[in-house]
């Protein structure tokens, strides 16, 4: 099996926040912590408004894992990045390292305490006995151990958010692009870093 990934189709996302609600409900995430959220750009601009659902992207080379001073992160065989809350010291380094703002810290408490880190688990629980009460209390639901996919993706009403084996969801997305004739430009190297013809020459460079 390839790696477990999320893919959000910006052409389909309608900013309903159903994925956020599903995640909250499935994992009983505490108040103030959002494992998943919907980001909208060009809000209100007709034709240019795009939304995308963002959570932990379960990076293949995860920066959170690299910077953690107590090495509480691990990657499962399915490519899901998880962490041990019994080891986490709540330092927040992972939050600074993550490009998606995925790590969350509960702020509840008399002095605004920064508790142990909480993030999307791809509904794969954590390092406790599968489907146990301890696992649910610390990490939320373990849907992979039940043969299910993450709740956010499975209940997305427009199927904008796809979750699962990277190969399979890439095939689904490719079929969509072929059918509607556009959408491939949303992803890729050129979109992330600029097309070669658009790339400006560095300052001071000799022509």
């Amino acid at each position: 099996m390839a790696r477990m990934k999320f893919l959000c189709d910006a052409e389909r996302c309608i900013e309903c926040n159903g994925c956020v609600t599903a995640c909250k409900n499935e994992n009983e995430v505490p108040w103030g912590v959002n494992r998943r959220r919907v980001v909208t750009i060009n809000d209100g601009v007709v034709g240019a408004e795009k939304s995308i659902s963002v959570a932990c992207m379960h990076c293949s080379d995860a920066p959170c894992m690299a910077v953690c001073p107590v090495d509480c992160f691990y990657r499962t065989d399915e490519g899901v990045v998880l962490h041990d809350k019994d080891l986490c010291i709540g330092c927040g380094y992972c939050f600074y390292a993550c490009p998606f703002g995925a790590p969350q810290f509960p702020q509840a408490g008399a002095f605004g305490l920064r508790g142990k880190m909480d993030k999307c688990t791809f509904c794969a629980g954590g390092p406790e006995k599968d489907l146990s009460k301890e696992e649910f209390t610390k990490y939320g639901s373990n849907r992979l151990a039940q043969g299910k996919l993450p709740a956010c993706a499975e209940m997305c009403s427009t199927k904008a958010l796809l979750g699962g084996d990277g190969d399979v969801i890439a095939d689904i997305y490719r079929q969509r692009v072929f059918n509607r004739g556009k959408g491939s430009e949303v992803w890729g190297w050129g979109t992330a870093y600029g097309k070669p013809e658009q790339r400006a020459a560095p300052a001071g460079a000799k022509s």
Partner: protein
Amino acid sequence: MIDPRKLFLAGAAIAVALGLAACGERDQVTVYKQGKYQGKPDNKPWENDPAASLYTTSKWTPGDKTSWESALRTRNLAQNEYNRVQ
């Protein structure tokens, strides 16, 4: 009458036993090794019995990774609504 020498030896033996008991104390501090996961081991999802969970349609043989992957792939493909309408 109890021999004072034996009494002394018995007392010394008890003192040594109690003293050495402290040597059996486990480490209270985790020794971190750079770059390696230091937490608890996790179970594999395919090791679970599908009957242990409620409301799931996925079926696989507990311990068989291939059958679990197959079940999950079926579930994964259900996200493609083109398969439903065609």
